[in-house]
């Protein structure tokens, strides 16, 4: 059969930092899946709350609000530094990228420290009642995620300091940033549910 030329792709870019890149879609897929998990956790929380006589159970008080709210602020701030880091590499500013990612990692590490202290101060255990179980499980779920973005982004930071990323070669940064946003923003529904929820349900 005669073979004729249809499209010539020799001159097309081999670097696809944006929606063109499969990896960009791949991370979107991961975020979708995990969002479904987040949602399922939230629904489970509400289901248990709805069927409970009192929520939180008699004898427990709603957890204090201060530290989680500070964490919320820190996570939002780290998203901002992450965003700036991404902006920097779009302009080819390698130093800006390295600084931004490092700052985000440090901010999230602070969150981990604060969260650890806060969890240790909880007055109830996951064994005590369904309320304790779901609070601890959601907290643990998010804690593990913050740990994983700290770990993953630390690697990105190392590569950034070594000058691996360039204006073209930046897909790694793009997907890391997107996942970072997801983990930080997932804290919002959890925060509302875990800390505002009992105050609303409790009335």
């Amino acid at each position, binding site marked *: *059969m*005669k*073979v*004729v*030329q*249809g*499209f*010539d*792709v*020799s*001159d*097309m*870019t*081999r670097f*696809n930092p944006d929606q*063109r*890149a*499969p*990896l960009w*879609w*791949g991370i979107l*897929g*991961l975020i*979708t*899946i*995990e969002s*479904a*998990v987040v949602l*399922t*956790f939230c629904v*489970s929380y509400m*289901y*248990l709350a709805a*069927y*409970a006589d009192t929520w939180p*159970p008699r004898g427990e008080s709603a957890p204090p609000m201060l530290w989680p709210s500070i964490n919320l602020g820190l996570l939002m701030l780290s998203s901002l530094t992450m965003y700036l880091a991404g902006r920097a590499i779009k302009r080819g500013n390698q130093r800006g990228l390295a600084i931004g990612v490092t700052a985000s990692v440090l901010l999230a590490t602070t969150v981990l420290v604060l969260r650890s202290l806060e969890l240790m101060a909880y007055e109830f255990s*996951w*064994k*005590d*009642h*369904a*309320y*304790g*179980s*779901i609070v*601890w*499980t959601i907290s643990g779920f998010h804690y*593990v995620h913050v*740990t*994983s973005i700290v*770990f*993953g982004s630390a*690697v990105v930071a190392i*590569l950034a300091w070594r000058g*691996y990323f360039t204006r073209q*070669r930046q897909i*790694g940064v793009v997907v890391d940033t997107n996942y970072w946003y997801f983990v930080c923003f997932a804290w919002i529904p959890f925060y509302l549910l875990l800390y505002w929820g009992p105050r609303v349900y409790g009335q």
Partner: protein
Amino acid sequence: MTLETPATPHDRIDSAEQATQLERTWHSPGGLLGWFTHVNQRMIGKRFIITAFIFFLLAGILGILIRLQLAGPEQQFIGPELYNQFFTMHGTVMMFFFAIPVMEGFAIYFVPLMVGTRDMAFPRLNAFGYYVYLIGGIVLFGSLLLSMAPNAGWFNYVPLSSKLYSPGYGVDVWTTMITFIEVSALTAAVELIVTTLRMRAPGMSLNRMPLFVWAALVMSFMIVFAMPAVIVSSTLLILDRLVDTQFFIVEGGGEPLLWQHLFWYFGHPEVYIILVPALGMISTIIITFTRRPIYGYTALVLSVVAIGFVSFGLWVHHMFTTGLPQLGMSFFTAASVTIAIPSGVQIFCWIASLWGARIRFATPMLWVLGFFAIFVIGGLTGVMVASIPFDTQVHDTFFLVAHFHYVLIGGAVFPLIGATYYWWPKITGRMMSETAGKWSFWLAFIGFNVTFFPMHQLGLEGMPRRIYTYVEEMGWGDLNLLATIGSLVLATGFGVTLINAIWSVLRGRRAEPNPWGAPTLEWAADSPPASYNFRHIPVVESRWPLWDWEQAGERAVVTGLRHDRREVVLTSVLDAKPVGVQVLPAPTIWPFVSAVAASMGFIGIIFHPIFFVIAFFLVAFTLVAWFWPRRPWRDD
């Protein structure tokens, strides 16, 4: 758009030397160690398919053992404990380790070929998913040999599956391995979505996509939205069992029904996750064996998408006997009946396509016709059990067992075997025997009906499911004996196909690239396809590219991909216009290492929670190694 070039056999876009270079670039390393580094989608797809069929065989043997136990009243062949393990393992393996992986395997193998590209979007992730599946399957099945197998049914209702009523490791193995294998299902789903949306051959706009690719796409989206629910539910259950959380424990303020909601929110779509790709296979086979464009392409696509959506709104029909509020239940009855509409559209389009066509009754087509007969019965009983008064009557009786085997075997296994015959020459380069194929079909068809039809009657007579025996006076003996005989005939039918397959690999007639005269792109590759799938990435101008080329006597292709590394074309989502080129990664051992690290965690936590932490960091390190950029860094 099309530029004419001289059509000599060795013009500049078609030289043998380039083919050799392509082969060097894309080939998979040999040797035992090499085996663990393979990333090509056809390798992975084939492994998924073969492994899944092995699980089908194993779970099928369990099914037969169950039937032998039930053949007569008060038999002592397998005791109650083993019986519980057997039906649990049978159901679990069939649903999680056979049906979904086999469909994904076919999709992994054929979607890239059908959309005209050289691999999947994330070849290494693909390999990772396979190892996860393999390890998970071995552990689950191994638990049976160690008498540690799950025994609380494939849907593991609490409180039966809680630590109090199911001590021992069985349910732990179930929950961890289910979560683990869903990881594999999810990676494959994301791969399939991205590959389908971003890597189609230029010109293959969404409305020219082969119907099987559509079905695989819908299946993948369903997996993405359904599997997280089962992951969460099994995580909650394992937490209850391992670290004493109270999610499902009433005394601790937990809610057993939460389990059922989460499980069936996944479990109902699960059935359609299995069915939808089968619908795609049926359409594919019908097109080829009537040799004309299918009737109602758009209607078929829309109804598959609709089935995908509606199936998420039905889960409560598995819970009609749990005492939920009446109004809610009526809604779910209505929704359950609604799904008959898109299913009906499918059947209508197929009948219209077959109407007046010169049908070639080759083996794949026979299995499709068998599907029609069986599936219609399964669908009817489905509408019956969607009605609450009737369901209250037959719930947890053999009527249900009959119903869902009509749907699952009729709806998925029959089309699947048809598709296996259909695509066999593409995968192996050899034909299967038609005579044996027809024998296999008739034995399986008759055997199937003899096995499962009597179960309707048994159910109406009140025989509960999941009982290891029954007393003579119930009068269920004769029909049970009949069903057992039927199951042996059914097994013989599948066995003939197995022998046919082995025989074909050893002695089968060699297959040309397009032995059935099909219109879709996978048939433009060699049989079996070369490592790089296509020498030239095709350019597509209609739904039936091969039929077009046949008429035109020529074909347009993409040029300008490098041959010395793994390059594929990226195209736009809707109309498949080329937008870029992607370089894919080469073979590596890391996906395997990662999967082993992850499995350590999943197996380990059954014994101690610390394994979660260990595996978490191990996996993180393997991922870094997997993604670490190698110098020289690409600079173009």
